């Protein structure tokens, strides 16, 4: 098929990382481009040495790898901020407010710009604790899973991805167990007709209406619980 099977359960972690790389971040350039950067996503003003600029994360990393910039880590990634998030996380049932791409951004920065991050080991440790606390919350969501709705504000995209296949499949199977009366119409109410039966094997349609036999369609006993 045009899309390999492993891509059919939502996005892959790499794709989510790719999306996070579109997010803006602040850098101090060590290069003078002397010209606008005319990107397809829009034009960036020239990068000047030691001047702070907002650029997409992917661009920041690309420059960083060539030692052409240093990255200003976002406020929420500071030790104090993460400590506060962690205590919020442990105190409340809801997810604490972290950026949608917090896991990806943090991992990309720790991997490629570790020297720009103050006390990276504490940051790593805090992120790990945060992640574990939040993971447990995400899993708890399963208990609320019903055929109506589940609300999960502030969950990160990578966290969603981790539980998505399980949640969506479970949701679908639950609906199948609902009694027939609650069964859902097939396609927005309009039944599609694709020709139906023909030939003799399907003689349902070649027979005259049942009224000919003057017989109601209820027959056979409906089994009961025993």
């Amino acid at each position, binding site marked *: 098929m045009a899309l390999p099977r492993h891509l059919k359960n939502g996005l892959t972690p790499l794709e989510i990382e790719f999306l996070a790389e579109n997010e803006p971040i602040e850098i101090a350039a060590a290069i003078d481009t002397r010209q606008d950067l005319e990107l397809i996503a829009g034009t960036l003003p020239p990068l000047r040495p030691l001047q702070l600029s907002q650029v997409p994360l992917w661009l920041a990393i690309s420059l960083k790898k060539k030692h052409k910039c240093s990255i200003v880590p976002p406020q929420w990634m500071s030790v104090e901020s993460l400590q506060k998030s962690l205590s919020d996380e442990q105190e409340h049932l809801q997810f604490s407010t972290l950026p949608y791409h917090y896991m990806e951004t943090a991992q990309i920065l720790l991997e490629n710009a570790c020297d720009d991050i103050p006390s990276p080991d504490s940051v790593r440790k805090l992120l790990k604790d945060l992640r574990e606390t939040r993971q447990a919350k995400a899993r708890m969501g399963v208990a609320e899973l019903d055929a109506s709705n589940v609300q999960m504000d502030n969950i990160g995209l990578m966290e969603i991805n981790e*539980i998505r296949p399980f949640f969506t499949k479970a949701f679908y*199977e639950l609906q199948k167990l609902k009694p027939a009366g609650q069964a859902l119409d097939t396609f927005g109410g309009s039944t599609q007709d694709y020709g139906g039966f023909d030939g003799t094997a399907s003689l349902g349609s070649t027979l005259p209406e049942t009224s000919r036999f003057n017989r109601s369609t209820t027959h056979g006993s409906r089994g009961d619980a*025993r």
Partner: protein
Amino acid sequence: MEDYYDIDSILAEDQNIKCVFHRSIPGLAWLEGGQDDVLKAGSRIDIPFWLARELIGHPQGSVEMEIETPDFYGTKVRNGLRAEATVVDLPKLCPHFFRFGAHFLQIIEDPKLGEVLEKAFKDRLQTTMDHTQSGGMSNTTEYLQRLDETERELYKAGLESSASVHQWNQHSFGRIRSAGEVLLKRKLA
């Protein structure tokens, strides 16, 4: 909602159930493995669910029949599921316990059974989910043996996605792999 090409759905219907016809039917004795010609009225016979469903639901009228609720949806099992759903060994009862239940509920009226199945399914979800995140723990395999086919598929899906995030966390991505590697990886998963 059912898909024509869904193998799981096809297999879930392949479950024998007990039926009784109210009239004798010449020419169908072989249904109960008999040598004679006539299938006698009142004989209790085992037929696949996929056949029973079409016979009992036929709009033009066929011989009246009765379908029995299988033992694995009987009082004993229901009580067990109500008490502690996670310890019930479902595949021992019926490999497609829930999916077959969904099919079966379409032809009989038994709201209680629907409730029991739905609740049991929900009760077991949390435990199954937890196991997807602790793959390889000692008590995992024992619990997994008690899962029915639908739950197994769920477990597999959950394990795959949590493993892929874990792998990403370990920085083991980013390198282009050959198609062979990708296919091989999937086989091992």
